Protein backbone atom coordinates (compact mmCIF):
# COMPACT_ATOMS: atom_id res chain seq x y z
CA UNK A 1 0.00 0.00 0.00
CA UNK A 2 1.69 3.20 -1.16
CA UNK A 3 -0.71 5.80 0.22
CA UNK A 4 -3.66 5.22 2.50
CA UNK A 5 -6.96 6.10 0.87
CA UNK A 6 -8.71 9.01 2.61
CA UNK A 7 -5.63 10.12 4.55
CA UNK A 8 -4.51 13.76 4.23
CA UNK A 9 -1.50 12.61 2.23
CA UNK A 10 -3.69 10.39 0.06
CA UNK A 11 -6.11 13.20 -0.66
CA UNK A 12 -3.28 15.57 -1.50
CA UNK A 13 -1.76 13.04 -3.85
CA UNK A 14 -5.16 12.44 -5.44
CA UNK A 15 -5.45 16.16 -6.23
CA UNK A 16 -2.02 16.04 -7.80
CA UNK A 17 -2.87 12.90 -9.77
CA UNK A 18 -5.97 14.57 -11.16
CA UNK A 19 -3.92 17.64 -12.04
CA UNK A 20 -1.35 15.40 -13.72
CA UNK A 21 1.58 16.72 -11.70
CA UNK A 22 3.36 16.34 -8.39
CA UNK A 23 3.62 19.91 -7.17
CA UNK A 24 3.63 23.52 -8.28
CA UNK A 25 7.29 24.10 -7.45
CA UNK A 26 10.41 22.03 -7.11
CA UNK A 27 10.39 22.88 -3.40
CA UNK A 28 6.85 21.55 -3.03
CA UNK A 29 7.85 18.34 -4.79
CA UNK A 30 10.80 17.90 -2.43
CA UNK A 31 8.51 18.43 0.56
CA UNK A 32 6.08 15.86 -0.79
CA UNK A 33 8.91 13.37 -1.27
CA UNK A 34 10.12 14.00 2.28
CA UNK A 35 6.64 13.49 3.72
CA UNK A 36 6.22 10.22 1.86
CA UNK A 37 9.64 8.94 2.91
CA UNK A 38 8.98 9.96 6.52
CA UNK A 39 5.70 8.02 6.48
CA UNK A 40 7.48 5.01 5.04
CA UNK A 41 10.55 4.97 7.29
CA UNK A 42 8.90 5.88 10.59
CA UNK A 43 6.85 2.70 10.46
CA UNK A 44 9.91 0.46 10.34
CA UNK A 45 11.75 -1.08 13.29
CA UNK A 46 14.97 0.70 14.18
CA UNK A 47 17.58 -1.82 13.05
CA UNK A 48 20.06 -1.86 10.14
CA UNK A 49 18.04 -2.47 7.05
CA UNK A 50 20.11 -1.08 4.18
CA UNK A 51 23.81 -1.16 3.31
CA UNK A 52 25.93 0.46 0.62
CA UNK A 53 28.96 -0.65 -1.38
CA UNK A 54 30.86 2.47 -0.37
CA UNK A 55 34.35 2.84 1.11
CA UNK A 56 34.01 2.64 4.05
CA UNK A 57 31.02 0.27 4.05
CA UNK A 58 27.90 1.88 5.54
CA UNK A 59 24.66 0.56 6.96
CA UNK A 60 21.52 2.54 7.75
CA UNK A 61 18.63 2.08 10.12
CA UNK A 62 15.37 3.70 8.99
CA UNK A 63 16.01 6.53 11.48
CA UNK A 64 19.53 7.15 10.19
CA UNK A 65 18.28 7.22 6.64
CA UNK A 66 15.50 9.61 7.59
CA UNK A 67 18.02 12.00 9.13
CA UNK A 68 19.99 12.00 5.87
CA UNK A 69 16.77 12.81 4.02
CA UNK A 70 15.70 15.58 6.42
CA UNK A 71 19.16 17.19 6.21
CA UNK A 72 19.26 16.71 2.43
CA UNK A 73 22.75 15.25 2.52
CA UNK A 74 24.01 13.69 -0.74
CA UNK A 75 22.50 10.38 0.41
CA UNK A 76 19.27 12.14 1.36
CA UNK A 77 19.04 13.95 -1.97
CA UNK A 78 19.53 10.63 -3.76
CA UNK A 79 16.51 9.20 -1.90
CA UNK A 80 14.42 12.32 -2.52
CA UNK A 81 15.10 12.14 -6.26
CA UNK A 82 14.28 8.44 -6.25
CA UNK A 83 11.04 9.16 -4.43
CA UNK A 84 10.01 11.74 -7.02
CA UNK A 85 10.72 9.26 -9.80
CA UNK A 86 8.78 6.64 -7.88
CA UNK A 87 5.75 8.91 -7.50
CA UNK A 88 5.84 9.66 -11.22
CA UNK A 89 5.85 5.92 -11.84
CA UNK A 90 2.76 5.54 -9.64
CA UNK A 91 1.05 8.41 -11.44
CA UNK A 92 1.69 6.70 -14.77
CA UNK A 93 0.22 3.48 -13.40
CA UNK A 94 -2.79 5.40 -12.07
CA UNK A 95 -3.41 7.04 -15.45
CA UNK A 96 -3.25 3.67 -17.18
CA UNK A 97 -5.69 2.09 -14.70
Amino acid at each position, binding site marked *: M*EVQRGSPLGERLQVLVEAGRLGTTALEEIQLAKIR*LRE*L*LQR*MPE*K*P*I*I*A*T*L*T*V*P*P*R*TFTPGQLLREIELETP*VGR*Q*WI*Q*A*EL*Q*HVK*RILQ*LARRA
Partner: protein
Amino acid sequence: MPQSSVSLFILPRKHYLEYGSCVAKHLLRQHGRGTIIALEGDEASPESIDRAIQQYDPAFIFGIGHGKPDLYTVECTQEYLRVGSPREELMKGRIIHLNSCYTGARLGSSLVAKGALAFLGSVEPFYFYIAEPPCSSRASMTVFLAEHQAAVSILSGRSARQAHVDRLHAYEREIEHWLTGPGRDHPHAPLLTRILQIDQSIAVMRGKGEASIAPPARAAILPVQMATAIGFAAIALSW
Protein backbone atom coordinates in the same frame (compact mmCIF):
# COMPACT_ATOMS: atom_id res chain seq x y z
CA MET B 1 44.57 -11.05 -26.72
CA PRO B 2 42.12 -11.98 -23.95
CA GLN B 3 40.48 -15.39 -24.13
CA SER B 4 36.89 -14.81 -25.23
CA SER B 5 35.58 -17.95 -23.55
CA VAL B 6 37.12 -17.16 -20.15
CA SER B 7 35.56 -14.94 -17.48
CA LEU B 8 36.77 -13.97 -14.02
CA PHE B 9 34.35 -13.41 -11.14
CA ILE B 10 35.66 -11.62 -8.01
CA LEU B 11 33.34 -12.56 -5.15
CA PRO B 12 34.41 -11.23 -1.72
CA ARG B 13 32.27 -11.99 1.32
CA LYS B 14 33.12 -9.74 4.24
CA HIS B 15 31.58 -6.35 5.05
CA TYR B 16 28.18 -7.46 3.69
CA LEU B 17 29.60 -8.44 0.29
CA GLU B 18 28.22 -11.95 0.69
CA TYR B 19 24.83 -10.42 -0.22
CA GLY B 20 26.02 -9.78 -3.76
CA SER B 21 28.46 -12.66 -4.13
CA CYS B 22 25.92 -15.35 -3.31
CA VAL B 23 23.55 -13.98 -5.95
CA ALA B 24 26.34 -13.95 -8.54
CA LYS B 25 27.08 -17.61 -7.75
CA HIS B 26 23.39 -18.42 -7.96
CA LEU B 27 23.18 -16.81 -11.41
CA LEU B 28 26.37 -18.52 -12.58
CA ARG B 29 24.93 -21.90 -11.67
CA GLN B 30 21.90 -21.09 -13.82
CA HIS B 31 23.39 -19.11 -16.69
CA GLY B 32 27.16 -19.65 -16.67
CA ARG B 33 28.81 -20.04 -20.06
CA GLY B 34 32.36 -20.91 -21.05
CA THR B 35 35.10 -21.18 -18.47
CA ILE B 36 34.56 -19.17 -15.32
CA ILE B 37 37.19 -18.51 -12.69
CA ALA B 38 35.49 -17.57 -9.43
CA LEU B 39 37.65 -16.14 -6.65
CA GLU B 40 35.62 -16.26 -3.47
CA GLY B 41 36.11 -14.85 0.01
CA ASP B 42 39.77 -14.63 1.03
CA GLU B 43 40.76 -15.68 -2.49
CA ALA B 44 39.29 -12.43 -3.77
CA SER B 45 42.60 -10.74 -2.91
CA PRO B 46 44.65 -8.44 -5.14
CA GLU B 47 47.42 -11.03 -5.55
CA SER B 48 45.07 -13.86 -6.54
CA ILE B 49 43.19 -11.65 -8.95
CA ASP B 50 46.42 -10.53 -10.65
CA ARG B 51 47.57 -14.15 -10.94
CA ALA B 52 44.22 -15.26 -12.37
CA ILE B 53 44.28 -12.49 -14.98
CA GLN B 54 47.84 -13.30 -16.00
CA GLN B 55 47.20 -17.05 -16.11
CA TYR B 56 43.79 -17.18 -17.76
CA ASP B 57 43.62 -13.84 -19.61
CA PRO B 58 39.82 -13.46 -19.24
CA ALA B 59 37.87 -11.37 -21.73
CA PHE B 60 35.32 -10.45 -19.09
CA ILE B 61 35.93 -9.47 -15.46
CA PHE B 62 33.08 -9.07 -13.01
CA GLY B 63 33.82 -7.79 -9.52
CA ILE B 64 31.80 -7.11 -6.39
CA GLY B 65 33.35 -4.77 -3.84
CA HIS B 66 33.20 -1.48 -2.02
CA GLY B 67 34.16 1.56 -4.04
CA LYS B 68 34.78 5.26 -4.39
CA PRO B 69 34.84 7.34 -7.58
CA ASP B 70 38.52 6.53 -8.10
CA LEU B 71 38.83 3.23 -6.19
CA TYR B 72 37.60 -0.37 -6.29
CA THR B 73 38.34 -2.65 -3.33
CA VAL B 74 38.05 -6.42 -2.87
CA GLU B 75 37.97 -8.73 0.20
CA CYS B 76 38.50 -6.86 3.49
CA THR B 77 38.31 -3.59 1.52
CA GLN B 78 41.84 -4.16 0.17
CA GLU B 79 42.57 -1.72 -2.62
CA TYR B 80 42.59 -3.32 -6.05
CA LEU B 81 42.04 -0.71 -8.75
CA ARG B 82 42.72 3.00 -8.43
CA VAL B 83 42.66 5.74 -11.03
CA GLY B 84 46.23 6.24 -12.21
CA SER B 85 47.58 2.98 -10.80
CA PRO B 86 49.64 0.63 -13.04
CA ARG B 87 47.03 -2.09 -12.53
CA GLU B 88 44.64 -0.25 -14.83
CA GLU B 89 46.76 -1.58 -17.70
CA LEU B 90 45.73 -5.12 -16.74
CA MET B 91 42.18 -4.31 -17.82
CA LYS B 92 43.21 -3.53 -21.41
CA GLY B 93 41.15 -5.32 -24.06
CA ARG B 94 38.58 -6.62 -21.56
CA ILE B 95 34.97 -5.88 -20.62
CA ILE B 96 34.72 -4.90 -16.95
CA HIS B 97 31.63 -4.88 -14.73
CA LEU B 98 32.16 -3.61 -11.18
CA ASN B 99 29.22 -3.90 -8.81
CA SER B 100 30.34 -1.26 -6.34
CA CYS B 101 29.52 2.31 -5.36
CA TYR B 102 30.70 5.26 -7.42
CA THR B 103 33.22 3.47 -9.67
CA GLY B 104 31.26 4.55 -12.75
CA ALA B 105 31.98 8.15 -11.84
CA ARG B 106 35.73 8.19 -12.58
CA LEU B 107 37.39 4.78 -12.43
CA GLY B 108 35.27 3.33 -15.25
CA SER B 109 36.15 6.11 -17.67
CA SER B 110 39.79 5.88 -16.65
CA LEU B 111 39.88 2.14 -17.34
CA VAL B 112 38.34 2.72 -20.76
CA ALA B 113 40.91 5.45 -21.46
CA LYS B 114 43.63 2.91 -20.60
CA GLY B 115 42.26 0.37 -23.04
CA ALA B 116 39.40 -1.53 -21.40
CA LEU B 117 36.82 -2.25 -24.08
CA ALA B 118 33.78 -1.36 -21.99
CA PHE B 119 32.85 -0.71 -18.38
CA LEU B 120 29.60 -1.23 -16.52
CA GLY B 121 29.10 0.19 -13.04
CA SER B 122 27.32 2.72 -10.86
CA VAL B 123 28.00 6.44 -10.46
CA GLU B 124 26.62 6.95 -6.94
CA PRO B 125 26.06 4.87 -3.78
CA PHE B 126 24.61 1.43 -4.57
CA TYR B 127 22.09 0.27 -1.95
CA PHE B 128 21.00 -3.20 -0.92
CA TYR B 129 18.65 -4.72 1.63
CA ILE B 130 20.14 -6.43 4.69
CA ALA B 131 17.11 -7.05 6.93
CA GLU B 132 17.19 -10.70 5.86
CA PRO B 133 20.25 -13.00 5.51
CA PRO B 134 22.10 -13.23 2.16
CA CYS B 135 20.28 -15.26 -0.50
CA SER B 136 17.58 -16.23 2.01
CA SER B 137 14.81 -14.47 0.11
CA ARG B 138 13.93 -12.59 -3.06
CA ALA B 139 14.11 -9.38 -1.00
CA SER B 140 17.74 -9.95 -0.01
CA MET B 141 18.65 -10.79 -3.62
CA THR B 142 16.51 -8.36 -5.56
CA VAL B 143 18.97 -5.55 -6.43
CA PHE B 144 21.69 -8.04 -7.32
CA LEU B 145 19.36 -10.10 -9.53
CA ALA B 146 18.85 -6.92 -11.52
CA GLU B 147 22.41 -5.57 -11.47
CA HIS B 148 24.02 -8.92 -12.30
CA GLN B 149 21.77 -9.39 -15.32
CA ALA B 150 24.39 -7.39 -17.22
CA ALA B 151 27.00 -10.05 -16.42
CA VAL B 152 24.65 -12.84 -17.48
CA SER B 153 24.05 -11.02 -20.76
CA ILE B 154 27.77 -10.51 -21.38
CA LEU B 155 28.37 -14.21 -20.76
CA SER B 156 25.73 -15.09 -23.34
CA GLY B 157 27.55 -13.04 -25.97
CA ARG B 158 25.47 -9.86 -25.91
CA SER B 159 27.23 -6.54 -26.38
CA ALA B 160 28.06 -4.19 -23.52
CA ARG B 161 25.28 -1.80 -24.57
CA GLN B 162 22.75 -4.63 -24.84
CA ALA B 163 23.86 -5.92 -21.44
CA HIS B 164 23.33 -2.47 -19.95
CA VAL B 165 19.83 -2.28 -21.43
CA ASP B 166 19.10 -5.82 -20.21
CA ARG B 167 20.15 -4.70 -16.74
CA LEU B 168 17.78 -1.71 -16.83
CA HIS B 169 14.94 -4.01 -17.90
CA ALA B 170 15.81 -6.41 -15.09
CA TYR B 171 15.47 -3.52 -12.62
CA GLU B 172 12.04 -2.78 -14.10
CA ARG B 173 11.00 -6.40 -13.60
CA GLU B 174 12.15 -6.35 -9.98
CA ILE B 175 10.37 -3.04 -9.30
CA GLU B 176 7.19 -4.44 -10.82
CA HIS B 177 7.51 -7.53 -8.62
CA TRP B 178 7.44 -5.43 -5.44
CA LEU B 179 5.11 -2.67 -6.64
CA THR B 180 2.28 -4.55 -8.31
CA GLY B 181 3.40 -8.18 -8.50
CA PRO B 182 3.58 -11.11 -6.08
CA GLY B 183 5.94 -9.26 -3.74
CA ARG B 184 3.65 -6.27 -3.11
CA ASP B 185 2.52 -7.55 0.31
CA HIS B 186 6.05 -7.96 1.67
CA PRO B 187 6.36 -5.65 4.70
CA HIS B 188 9.31 -3.87 3.12
CA ALA B 189 8.07 -3.86 -0.47
CA PRO B 190 7.85 -0.02 -0.62
CA LEU B 191 11.45 0.25 0.59
CA LEU B 192 12.65 -2.33 -1.92
CA THR B 193 11.08 -0.44 -4.82
CA ARG B 194 12.93 2.72 -3.75
CA ILE B 195 16.26 0.91 -3.48
CA LEU B 196 15.77 -0.59 -6.94
CA GLN B 197 14.77 2.79 -8.32
CA ILE B 198 18.00 4.33 -7.04
CA ASP B 199 20.27 1.53 -8.21
CA GLN B 200 18.66 1.56 -11.65
CA SER B 201 19.08 5.31 -12.00
CA ILE B 202 22.82 5.21 -11.26
CA ALA B 203 23.73 2.36 -13.64
CA VAL B 204 26.10 3.41 -16.42
CA MET B 205 27.99 1.93 -19.34
CA ARG B 206 31.24 3.45 -20.63
CA GLY B 207 33.39 2.62 -23.63
CA LYS B 208 32.52 0.65 -26.74
CA GLY B 209 28.88 -0.33 -26.60
CA GLU B 210 29.38 -2.90 -29.33
CA ALA B 211 32.09 -4.77 -27.39
CA SER B 212 31.25 -8.38 -26.62
CA ILE B 213 32.83 -11.70 -25.88
CA ALA B 214 32.15 -14.45 -28.39
CA PRO B 215 29.36 -16.70 -27.16
CA PRO B 216 31.37 -19.64 -25.89
CA ALA B 217 30.57 -23.29 -26.37
CA ARG B 218 28.82 -24.75 -23.35
CA ALA B 219 31.34 -27.57 -23.06
CA ALA B 220 34.56 -25.61 -22.57
CA ILE B 221 36.43 -27.15 -19.66
CA LEU B 222 39.13 -25.77 -17.40
CA PRO B 223 40.65 -28.61 -15.36
CA VAL B 224 40.35 -27.79 -11.66
CA GLN B 225 43.81 -29.32 -11.17
CA MET B 226 45.29 -26.58 -13.31
CA ALA B 227 43.89 -23.93 -11.03
CA THR B 228 45.20 -25.76 -7.99
CA ALA B 229 48.59 -26.34 -9.58
CA ILE B 230 49.23 -22.64 -10.05
CA GLY B 231 48.72 -22.06 -6.38
CA PHE B 232 45.44 -20.26 -5.84
CA ALA B 233 42.12 -21.65 -4.89
CA ALA B 234 40.12 -20.78 -7.91
CA ILE B 235 36.84 -22.50 -8.46
CA ALA B 236 36.65 -23.46 -12.08
CA LEU B 237 33.08 -23.66 -13.23
CA SER B 238 32.66 -25.04 -16.70
CA TRP B 239 29.63 -25.55 -18.83
